[in-house]
């Protein structure tokens, strides 16, 4: 960054939406240094620090764990901390907010809808009957851990919602991450619920048409598409065999 005459630059076209000022998002172009070790998020940080302090975007951990820096990069839902600028050289590269969500400002989207959906699937261990004392352990075998571990890797980054045409067309759809997280608990040997009442609905698993894009964009390899198809099988079997549970 010190020797700007030597460093190549890449043009970042960033969607700006300032409520009250812009009727709809407009693109603003910034030239940022094209460094080998810069992620798209580093480019945005450079803009905010050096070029235009009014730019708004979310980020936190910069290491693919917090799930807050998801954006649309050249039309694709990506974690901007894990996407390198060199991938788009010589540019330009377009940065837009995640598709499918209302835009609060610039690259910041409103995720309240997802948070309400997530809590609706009871994403915690549901137990019935007598609780063991707090000091008791719930021992699990490696196989029992393996049964749900993959689905527990979700970081709620919402790339899967943004990539899902069903959700983008119809925001009532419960969506990939919420269903995968419901399955994370359904498949846990310590859980006693099957969340049939919230998953066996037209706007829940039956709204999915298995586009499969959620799985493709997931940075944590959760495979929400698989979680949904597996629940369809369980729910269908439970519907034809009413006495069977799970």
């Amino acid at each position, binding site marked *: 960054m010190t020797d700007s005459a030597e460093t190549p630059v890449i043009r970042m076209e960033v969607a700006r939406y300032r409520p009250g000022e812009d009727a709809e998002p407009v693109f603003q172009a910034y030239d940022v240094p094209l460094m080998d070790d810069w992620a798209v998020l580093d480019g945005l940080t450079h803009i905010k620090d050096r070029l235009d302090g009014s730019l708004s975007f979310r980020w936190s951990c910069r290491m693919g764990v917090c799930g807050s820096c998801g954006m649309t990069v050249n039309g694709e839902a990506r974690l901007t901390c894990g996407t390198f600028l060199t991938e788009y050289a010589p540019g330009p590269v377009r940065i837009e907010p995640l598709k499918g969500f209302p835009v609060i400002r610039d690259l910041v989207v409103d995720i309240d809808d997802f948070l309400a959906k997530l809590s609706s699937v009871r994403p915690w261990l549901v137990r019935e009957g007598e609780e063991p004392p707090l000091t008791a352990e719930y021992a699990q075998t490696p196989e029992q851990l393996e049964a749900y571990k993959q689905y527990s890797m979700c970081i709620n980054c919402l790339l899967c919602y943004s990539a899902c045409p069903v959700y983008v067309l119809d925001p009532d759809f419960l969506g990939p991450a919420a269903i995968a997280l419901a399955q994370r608990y359904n498949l846990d040997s310590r859980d006693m619920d099957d969340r049939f009442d919230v998953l066996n*609905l037209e706007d829940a698993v039956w709204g999915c048409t298995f586009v499969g894009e959620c799985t493709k964009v997931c940075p944590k390899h959760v495979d929400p598409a698989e979680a949904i198809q597996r629940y369809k099988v369980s729910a269908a079997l*439970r519907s034809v065999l009413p006495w069977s549970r799970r």
Partner: protein
Amino acid sequence: MTPRRRTPEPYLWLLFTGGGVVAALVLPVVVLLFGVLMPLGVVDWPDAAHLRALAGHGLVRIALAVVVVLCLFHAAHRLRFTSEELLGIGRFDRLIAVVCYGGALAGSIVAVRMMTYMS
């Protein structure tokens, strides 16, 4: 427990899935033989009497009826969702569902009548 809303979706999905499997296993070879190879003369049309004996066999008739019914419901289910997604008309889901599954049901009745009449 909250009261459970009854939904027909699991049953429709089972028909869709069953139809998808049957369509995958059966249709390509049927279209290849009767729709492409025989009309092009690559393979000779079988003897009419042979096909008639085949179609008269009880097991073949049951198999044909199953194939037709499942494949039609498979197609109806996909057409329902695809039309809604392509055209953005999900708010008319009820009407579209009636048209799609109704069409499949009508085709199924035609097929079952055809298979149960003795020729």
